[in-house]
């Protein structure tokens, strides 16, 4: 019933704190035109457009995809807008893929973006809403106690978060599109950086970025005519769980492990650590890497930090994670999930440039959002499913 779908083209913007050189339209077109060029297509070739982004208060425009319809070449076509909080970039890619898998469209352009410099991202994230318990520690502070719980439960040493941040920022130096290019980053510079919400340090925290990511997804027929290698989608999955529920484990969310189990089952993965060559996962605070390694079945419960300490997740390690520099190096909130999915696709196409994992043929893209409650994942491969 499900048709094949492949990533034919990928494009992204140079991510930056403020892209003052482009409007929102300019930002999305920068990513979209690159994706179209990569796919060897023009705007006219696209059948449908699927847009994803996070809360519109970040830009101060309500439902901006309506205004961006012409900029995205969508006039006369179906235009769709997904919003699933932080996981939106990933779920948008999945919604777009489903249009091809259902045989409804042959070529779908999917774009995820955030131009959070236009409005005030911190304001939008911390907006005090009447009658709701105030976020005493702000958005980042919401996750800090959960990180502390992980450290307490696993017995992980303090420096694990530093190792992850160092790795991701060093990887970013090999990614020309990444926001942060910190040439002087070191273990000590991270360790000495200010504790924002103890146990999370400033240098272990994602930046706030303007950026966009786009992909052209195509059917089997379209993929077979592509002149460059494509990334075949082997599996997709989405799971959601409640915000406030007494049985929730915010450190190892069941939604995440259920989602991973589903995507692995569809992609024929029974041994994640053995069969997946590399991972792009959504790590906005460095401690999420060991937590997600466990949640995704790469390490057993309480041992994710050992993988980090052993260097397994380094670019030249046994299971490279966030070769692009990840969310820790670029975080246009609405786009971050799609960047993970797109970077996974670039890896199996052999087109990740300096941050390419040699011989990568199967990769996992992961996105999460909300209070660790929305999950979107896909597995892509160099070979057809």
């Amino acid at each position, binding site marked *: 019933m499900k048709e094949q779908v492949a990533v034919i083209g990928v494009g992204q913007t140079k991510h930056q704190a403020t892209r003052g050189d482009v409007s929102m339209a300019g930002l999305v077109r920068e990513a979209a035109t690159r994706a179209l060029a990569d796919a060897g297509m023009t705007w006219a070739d696209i059948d449908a457009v699927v847009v994803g982004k996070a809360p519109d208060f970040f830009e101060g425009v*309500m439902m901006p995809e*309506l205004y961006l319809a012409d900029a995205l070449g969508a006039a*006369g076509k179906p235009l769709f807008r997904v919003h699933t909080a932080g996981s939106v970039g990933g779920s948008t890619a999945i919604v777009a893929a489903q249009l091809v898998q259902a*045989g409804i469209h042959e070529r779908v352009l999917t774009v995820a973006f955030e131009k959070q410099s236009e409005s005030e991202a911190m304001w939008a994230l911390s907006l005090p809403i009447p009658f709701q318990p105030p976020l005493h520690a702000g958005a980042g502070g919401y996750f800090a106690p959960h990180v502390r719980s992980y450290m307490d439960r696993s017995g992980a040493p303090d420096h694990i978060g530093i190792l992850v941040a160092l790795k991701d920022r060093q990887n970013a130096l090999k990614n020309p599109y990444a926001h942060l290019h910190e040439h002087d980053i070191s273990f000590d510079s991270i360790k000495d950086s200010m504790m924002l919400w103890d146990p999370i340090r400033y240098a272990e925290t994602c930046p706030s970025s303007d950026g966009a990511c786009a992909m052209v997804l195509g059917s089997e027929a379209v993929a077979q005519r592509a002149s460059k290698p494509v990334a075949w989608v082997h599996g997709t999955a989405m799971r959601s769980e*409640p915000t406030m529920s007494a049985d929730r484990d915010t450190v190892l969310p069941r939604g995440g492990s259920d989602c991973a189990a589903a995507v692995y089952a569809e992609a024929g993965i029974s041994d994640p650590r053995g069969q997946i060559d590399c991972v792009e996962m959504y790590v906005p605070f460095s401690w999420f890497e060991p937590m997600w390694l466990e949640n995704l079945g790469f390490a057993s419960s309480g041992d994710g930090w050992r993988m980090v300490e052993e260097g397994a997740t380094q670019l030249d390690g046994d299971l490279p994670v966030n070769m692009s520099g990840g969310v820790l190096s670029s975080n246009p909130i609405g786009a971050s999930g799609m960047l993970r999915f797109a970077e996974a696709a670039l890896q199996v196409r052999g087109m990740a440039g300096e941050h390419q994992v040699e011989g990568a043929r199967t990769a996992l893209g992961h996105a999460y959002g909300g209070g660790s409650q929305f999950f979107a994942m896909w597995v892509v491969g160099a070979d057809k499913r």
Partner: protein
Amino acid sequence: MVRDIAVIAVAQMPNVRAETALNEVEMLMPVLAEVRARAGLTQSDIGFTCSGSTDYLSGQAFSFVSTLDGVGPWPPIQESHVEMDGAWALYEAWVKLQLGEIDTALVYCYGKSAPGPLHEVLSRQLDPYHVAPLWPDAISLAALQAKALIDAGKATEADFAAVAARSRKSALDNPNAQLAWDRPVADILAKDPIVDPLRIDDCPPITDGACAVILAAETRARELCSRPAWIRGIDHRIEPMALGARDLTVSASTAMAAEKAGLHGGAVDVAELHAPFSSQELILRDALGLGNQVDVNPSGGALAANPVMVAGLTRIGEVAQRIMDGSASRGVAHATSGPCLQQNLVCVLEGEGE
């Protein structure tokens, strides 16, 4: 190969000017309970859940997140959300069902238009550089479109008033309608326009509302419902936002979506058109090629109740109800988004063996 998907249950809350006692979650829960009860399903029976809402309406970022707790998503569920009217959430669910992995889907949407200054809120949709700073309200924009119709010789103010009168009279039979009355066209025309050429009765009310629909595939639909409302075709298209870039007297995207949805493959008994302004109904009738024999907006349409983000899905629900209860054989439902009918969705529904 396209799977046959049907609407098998619909529920909505009575549309009100403002729900001041209950918050969005509390407002929505009875609607979800009712639609599941009508389908005979629990949340864990449902394969996929998709909702539509917008942050700008509620004045809260990530507003749909807290509402999800009212769905009872435990164990974790397959769920998605669109920042669009629930009609598009239904579209996403319909696509998901096509993949063949699940057989049922819950679609819901809700919106409180009362809390914020609705017309100012909607102005935030407009071009942020050239148009939004002028804060044009939705009524003025619709009036521009209505004036274009008059200037093109396609309609008169009396035509608008006739739609307004007919809609509110039909709404008398709709227990969920907010505005329902029976007054002659002359009474409507006697009032001064509020924004020339639109009068107050040509405009929709401001509404708080919620709606939910359950979709099921093939055999499952027949198991759960004696007369499912089959979705024979569904499509949506968008036009440029700029009012000067399109002919406001026609709805090209509606016509295109109707063609792609296979509307013209047969006659239609009933049409529910998401026309917040009476003038817009005339444009949509034309775009869909509806003849005079078609029963248009028997629910009263958006002129009787216009919960933003909900009115579109409600149109689909109203057509589906009439097919499920046997009073209609084939119907078309329409949903719109953006200023002056910028984006349009058309859904063709039919009873079994029609």
